[in-house]
């Protein structure tokens, strides 16, 4: 699979045309790729979204198959970070297991030609047939930018097609061009010629531009990047986001809650008592149902994340916070990987590939798991819902939303602290680059946002249907067998394997206030955080002696746990690396088990410490 490809014969001879999309970051390569191949790779409005090559295929009108590669964006073939190196190697035919493409499609942003054409000229030197895709023609037209494509094509020595990657049929001209015969090799430019001078000439001969920047960008940046206003707006925005997660979701959650309860009651009245009924009602419905309730909160969180990603605001936030992150031993470039980790640490850790400096990159990877990922949301929401009263503070703020905000802040502060410590330990005072491009603002497209949310919903439901469900069933088995002896007095689960494990672990976790039910739930919860919620639901459903099938988790824990225990569990979840996929991706990205060990070790250590402090202090106070 990974064998280097020996045959240097263009694969076009075999009937399949092999095309690679290359260009500067944020020029719309992935948007084009998705439109051409019908894929759904991530598109967002900042530099460095794509960090690895992606392959897709489509059939051209003539029936010929075209294989398309989407590549990470880069400013030059002189790569400075791992993602840029991928693009360089593929273009040069040096990438293991990837034949050199037959044709390069250079994707440029028609509103940013001064920068993007230089890279096109640089690419001419590597000696592959090329096509120029002038993307974002819609924006260029709106800004009154006129481009003489015939002249540009003649001067560049390659076909030029206009594309609008975000519009239906916006790539037809490109498809027609790909379906035609391969264009001739462009003449390699004089090796000594100054590419910038050539770009200047191309621009003055072929392009007319009323204004170098969009007026709206200038106006927005004056406010959003203002030293004091900018920070205030960023804070309000973040605050609003977490408020909304709680206050908007409530009615939807009540609906789902009622639905799950109704199904549970219906099933338990239909089925006779026995293991099957217990598996369905106590295991599957109580377990999976307890997690599904949190779908609305997750979708609201993603609504904000998707809108921020597409608007172009994220790099601005990085700009505002860069200095703080440098102080902590990170870089403004860590901001986007860390922010992606609010969705999930796995893509966040992968996004760290855009960081040039290896030490910065490692620091970012090691602290990314501290960002509050969306899988923590069910745990937080459950505990907050059970223990924090629904109260309005100062006529404005929802107390539950405030606590959630505080938990997110706790994750961020912990990440900065750990990064700072790492920096202090390695005594590093070398210079680290920022060089971050700030893109034009864009209005998020409601259709794209809905598709994004739909995808998120399916991902979440798939998780519930696969990993969470199977672990819940497994836990049900472990909690139901071996069956209690005939003369048993307590609940059956006390005698089961899981019950014994829970009681054994209770000894370790007694100082932090976890009871044996929590200890049981933490074990399958190592695989994925939400599993802890479904596991708790199953454990309590099995342990309950009443026959009330709709016995819901939230009222049970709010009546049985102390506030100190709940706060301690919240503190545990801020830190504990209860996620196998995160550890796996750290292994893949750092190529080192040692780093996995260090990460897991320090996170568990911090988690225990934080829970211990929280529990002991809370017990003194309450």
């Amino acid at each position, binding site marked *: 699979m990974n064998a280097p490809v020996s045959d240097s014969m263009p694969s076009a001879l075999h009937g399949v045309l092999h095309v690679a999309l290359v260009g500067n970051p944020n020029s719309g390569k992935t948007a084009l790729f998705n439109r051409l191949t019908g894929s759904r790779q991530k598109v967002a409005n900042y530099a460095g979204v794509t960090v690895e090559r992606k392959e897709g295929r489509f059939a051209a009108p003539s029936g010929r198959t075209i294989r398309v590669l989407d590549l990470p964006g880069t400013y030059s073939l002189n790569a400075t970070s791992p993602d840029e190196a991928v693009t360089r190697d593929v273009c040069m035919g040096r990438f293991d297991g990837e034949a050199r493409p037959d044709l390069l499609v250079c994707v440029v942003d028609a509103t*940013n030609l001064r920068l993007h054409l230089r890279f096109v000229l640089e690419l001419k030197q590597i000696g592959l047939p090329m096509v120029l895709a002038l993307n974002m023609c819609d924006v260029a037209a709106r800004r009154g930018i006129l481009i003489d494509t015939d002249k540009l094509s003649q001067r560049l020595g390659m076909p030029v097609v206009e594309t609008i990657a975000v519009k239906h049929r916006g790539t037809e001209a490109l498809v027609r061009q790909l379906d035609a015969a391969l264009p001739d090799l462009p003449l390699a430019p004089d090796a000594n010629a100054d590419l*910038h001078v050539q770009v200047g000439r191309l621009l003055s001969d072929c392009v007319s531009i009323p204004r170098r*920047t969009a007026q709206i960008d200038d106006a927005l940046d004056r406010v959003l990047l203002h030293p004091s206003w900018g*920070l205030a707006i960023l804070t309000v925005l973040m605050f609003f986001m977490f408020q909304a997660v709680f206050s908007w979701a409530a009615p939807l959650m009540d609906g789902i809650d009622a639905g799950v309860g109704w199904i549970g009651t219906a099933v338990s009245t239909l089925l006779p008592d026995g293991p099957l009924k217990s598996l369905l009602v106590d295991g599957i419905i109580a377990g999976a149902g307890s997690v599904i309730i949190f779908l609305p909160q997750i979708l609201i969180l993603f609504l904000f994340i998707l809108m921020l990603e597409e608007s172009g605001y994220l790099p601005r936030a990085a700009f*505002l916070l860069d200095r703080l992150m440098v102080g902590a031993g990170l870089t403004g470039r860590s901001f986007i990987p860390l922010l992606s980790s609010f969705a999930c640490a796995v893509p966040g850790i992968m996004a760290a590939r855009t960081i040039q400096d290896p030490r910065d990159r490692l620091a970012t990877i090691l602290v990314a798991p501290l960002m509050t990922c969306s899988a923590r949301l069910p745990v937080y929401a459950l505990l907050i819902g059970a223990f924090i009263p629904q109260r309005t503070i100062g006529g404005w703020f929802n107390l539950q939303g405030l606590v959630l905000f505080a938990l997110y802040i706790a994750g961020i502060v912990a990440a900065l602290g750990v990064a700072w410590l790492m920096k202090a330990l390695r005594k590093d005072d070398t210079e680290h680059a920022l060089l971050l491009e700030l893109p034009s603002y864009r209005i998020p497209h409601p259709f794209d946002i809905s598709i994004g949310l739909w995808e998120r919903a399916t991902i979440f439901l798939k998780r519930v249907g696969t990993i969470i469900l199977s672990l819940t069933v497994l836990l049900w088995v472990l909690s139901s067998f071996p069956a209690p002896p005939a003369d048993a007095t307590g609940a059956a689960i006390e005698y089961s394997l899981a019950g014994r494990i829970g009681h054994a672990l209770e000894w370790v976790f007694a100082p932090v206030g976890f009871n044996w039910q929590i200890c049981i739930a933490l074990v399958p919860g190592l695989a994925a955080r939400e599993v802890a919620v479904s596991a708790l639901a199953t454990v309590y459903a099995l342990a309950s002696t009443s026959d009330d099938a709709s016995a819901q988790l939230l009222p049970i824990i709010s009546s049985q746990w102390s506030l100190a225990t709940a706060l301690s569990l919240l503190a545990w979840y801020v830190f504990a690396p209860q996620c196998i996929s995160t550890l796996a991706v750290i292994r893949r990205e750092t190529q080192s088990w040692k780093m996995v060990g260090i990460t897991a070790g320090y996170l568990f250590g911090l988690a225990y410490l934080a829970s211990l402090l929280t529990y002991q202090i809370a017990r003194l106070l309450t």
Partner: protein
Amino acid sequence: MYYENDSYLPFELRSLMRLSELPHHAAATVLHVESAGEIDSIAHRLRDLGFVQGEPVRVLAHGPFRRDPLLVQIGFTRFALRRAEAQRVHVEPAQA
């Protein structure tokens, strides 16, 4: 304007201005990018990004903490540069 008297300065002094010292919104053109040390990938990248002789450049804003980083407009693009990066870029303020 800050640099009205600029033309009285001898040329060498004018050219000593660095992008990190340029007042906000003052028009200037790039003279050259200085490399720190033998191989300076940051300087190289700055040139690739368009910081080359004759390009108009402007500083539009600075970050809230320690006036760092800088928001710089070069060509049609905006970049965030740290002061240490902007220091490598020598500029000549435009004549008022």
